[in-house]
């Protein structure tokens, strides 16, 4: 590879599992850091259970599609850290690394004897990022989260839905994705600070706490104006404001109409298009795109106040028109006239039909030894000198154990074999994959 990498020569000891931690180190890997994922097959969460194994393959530790996408750009070391010998090897690895990252419960690493003070004794300027549910300090540090629980407790679930209905929430672990973002952001910030000052540090990230600042303006409306979100008309669905309720800003930008999702032809599950008009001028452009029907030229829709007041009728009329077009054709017609419109897109739409993502090469195929050739999600940023890239498929479990133990740490091949025999590198009673047998030859 001819281009330099932003994180050339940076090594990360990655104890993370499930989703948020691995999503963080995926990006450090894309920037060129060497990610050493420490795993143990008896106690693994992320590869199994798998709901993304192709129908034609057996579900096992190496066939989760989502694991593959979440763990590209990494190497896997199978290591029993709960044994004295395994812990010693982990410490030797930390001694030649720059970053330690994990997303266990708050006291796990400390209980292993790998708390921050111990890490510093091993590597004085280590950057340690802990990504626990509630953080390492605070009275509820022992509470646990998955994305949906962090979203519920932090107020993020509440901001989704329709008035007088239960919260609709987020249909996925938004805070596993976003918690992962913060894990990577913390690691990069700590690394930059280390490069500038020579000082490492422990960065104590909490998935629940990280969710709270994402409601900033709503929280200020409460702390400054005393207005909470338990109020008539909130949350207003896709609208900026729910008709018939007090006119207040709902924290998604300007209070305008139209601002909604509209059904499109042929009316199937994901046939919707979103249309927003930020000004009278944009509304008049939409009127022209619709062919200036008589209802749309009524004075009651001419002003933003009128459109907000008559949103029910406005949305019905727009939908009667939008139903006559497919969502992509509708998008093109609107955007060509300067009207804000985009289709609701499923995963299939994004991968197969989105012309922008296609042009930007968002999904490029990559060969994986167990899964075969599949598209992998690319990076949303292009760096001119140090492009981020997917250069390794996700590792098979333990795939790089020999490379790391012998090549990097300098143990002999006999010591590798002994470690397999005594349960340090693989459970003694567990069947070994063929590539592990080959490693021992």
């Amino acid at each position, binding site marked *: 590879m001819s281009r*330099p990498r932003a*994180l050339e020569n940076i090594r990360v000891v990655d104890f993370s599992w499930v989703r948020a931690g691995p999503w963080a180190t995926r990006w450090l890997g894309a920037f060129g850091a060497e990610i050493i994922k420490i795993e143990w097959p008896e106690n693994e969460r992320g590869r199994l259970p798998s*709901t*993304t*194994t192709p129908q034609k393959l057996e579900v096992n530790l190496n066939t989760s599609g*989502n694991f593959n*996408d979440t763990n590209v750009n990494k190497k896997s070391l199978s290591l029993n850290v709960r044994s004295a010998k395994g812990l010693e090897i982990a410490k030797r690895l930390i001694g030649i690394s720059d970053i330690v990252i994990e997303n266990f419960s708050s006291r796990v690493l400390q209980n292993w004897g790998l708390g921050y003070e111990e890490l510093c004794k091993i590597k004085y300027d280590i950057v340690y990022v802990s990504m626990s549910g509630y*953080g390492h300090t*605070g009275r509820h540090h022992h509470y646990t989260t998955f994305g949906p629980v962090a979203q*519920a*407790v932090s107020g*993020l679930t509440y*901001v989704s839905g*329709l008035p007088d209905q*239960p*919260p609709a929430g*987020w*249909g*996925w672990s*938004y805070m*596993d*994705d976003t918690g992962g973002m913060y894990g*990577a952001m913390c690691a990069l*910030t*700590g690394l930059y600070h280390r490069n500038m000052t020579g000082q490492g540090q*422990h*960065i*104590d990230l909490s998935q629940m*706490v*990280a969710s709270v*600042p994402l*409601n900033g*303006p*709503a*929280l200020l*409306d409460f702390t400054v104006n005393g207005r909470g979100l338990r109020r008539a008309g909130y949350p*207003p669905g*896709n609208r900026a404001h729910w008709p018939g309720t007090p006119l207040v800003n709902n*924290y998604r*930008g300007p209070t305008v109409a139209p601002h909604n*999702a509209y059904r499109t032809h042929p009316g199937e*599950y994901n046939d*919707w298009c*979103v249309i927003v008009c930020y000004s009278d001028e944009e509304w008049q452009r939409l009127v022209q795109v619709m062919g200036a029907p008589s209802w749309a030229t009524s004075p009651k829709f001419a002003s933003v106040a009128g459109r907000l007041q008559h949103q029910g009728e406005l949305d019905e009329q727009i939908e009667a028109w939008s139903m006559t077009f497919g969502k992509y054709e509708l998008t093109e017609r609107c955007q060509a006239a300067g009207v804000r419109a*985009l*289709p*609701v*897109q*499923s*995963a299939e739409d994004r*991968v197969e039909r989105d*012309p922008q993502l296609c042009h*930007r090469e968002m999904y490029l195929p990559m060969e994986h030894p167990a899964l075969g050739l599949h*598209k992998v*999600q690319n990076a949303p*940023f*292009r760096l001119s*000198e*140090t492009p*981020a890239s997917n250069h390794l498929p996700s590792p098979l479990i333990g795939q790089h154990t020999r490379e790391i133990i012998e090549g990097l740490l300098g143990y002999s091949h006999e010591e590798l074999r002994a470690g397999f025999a005594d349960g340090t590198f693989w459970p003694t009673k567990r069947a070994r994959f063929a590539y592990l047998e080959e490693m021992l030859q």
Partner: protein
Amino acid sequence: MSDAQPLPGPLAGLRVLELADETGQFCGKLLGDLGADVVKIEPPGGERNRQVGPFLDDIPHPERSLSFWYYNTSKRGITLNLETADGRQLFRRLAATADVILETFRPGFLASLGLDYESLRKQNARLIMCALTPFGQTGPWRDYASSDLLHMAAGGEMASSVYDEADVPNAPPIAPGGGNAWHMGCHFAYMAIMAALVYRSVAGQGQYIDVSIHEACALTTEAAIANYIYRGEVLRRQTGRHHAAGPTPRTQFRAKDGTYVCALVAGRLNPKYVKDLADLLDSYGMAGDLKDPKYQDPAVIAANTSHIIDDLVANFIAGLPAEEVYHAAQERGFTWGAVRAPEALLDDPHLHDRGFWKEVEHPELGRNFIYPGEAAIYNGAPWRISRRAPLIGEHNTEIFCVELGLSRGELSVLAENRVI
């Protein structure tokens, strides 16, 4: 304890020029709160986000937008009209001193003013310039107009979020609120800038970064893409829980106080979990038949999943306030939580223990206000809000006169000519 100066943040010493609207201002805040000197450059009269509510005491005014306040902490503010020759010349002088420029103009705009990266780097080879735009600098949608809602549609967020048909028939796909499309773009932009800074700290060289908000959103739907790529599945939306290829048991239950609890039970019902669950329910005298030894048989559990979830767990939660369920369950090791409105967080003792809420002074108002704090505690170089959002042109004198050496007379001429 000494009265030594507080530790500087991890980005202390970095100079960032921010030319950002609602799409990018959060990235500037992320940098500023971690110690960078972020100079926000607004057009004369102020950035249009100052017109977005809610406003202090509901009085609309460009210095009273709470949205602007929140997203522009820890920045200094100047005004500059880049569409004048003097404005461009001053901007070039500032760019010569900058480590990072963050800009959110439409693709090609800065180049049309002769302020593209290639020309700015000639006077500053260490400069990092990040363009954060709705669709990136290239491609068929490059010039499309967007909004938070539009990004949540095209990015896939809406295709995953809504109600069960039984809860709200015929509901449209719903985009969660709060402006999270901008957050997603800014998180990735921050990462890319930091990676470029790490590289520069070693190689000495800056670079240009093109970030797409659409791509950031398309990357933020967890396993939806993998479900399609590996299994061809298009997922269905469900109330308060994960999208799925087929229906899954509910996880959101109404509590006695009318609010909700998120209780992740389905998929976890093994004998140990059921025993712990029986103990939790029994501590309130609500275990029903769950303590019956028959529930230590996985087959019996499987046959009674609906009874356990829809009768026992639902009734238990219906009998208690949501906060009590949350804490009682967590103390026994259950990953459950109360579905809170954001304002409830002000009373959360855990956040208080972490020093999360920050008092920020607004000296021109003679008042202090409480702001949300940090996602993560940086133990060696702390996060802090160094100042409230800048007033319009608040630091014009400080930056143009003190730092760039303009005279007061020159500053007046610039103001008269709408350059600042």
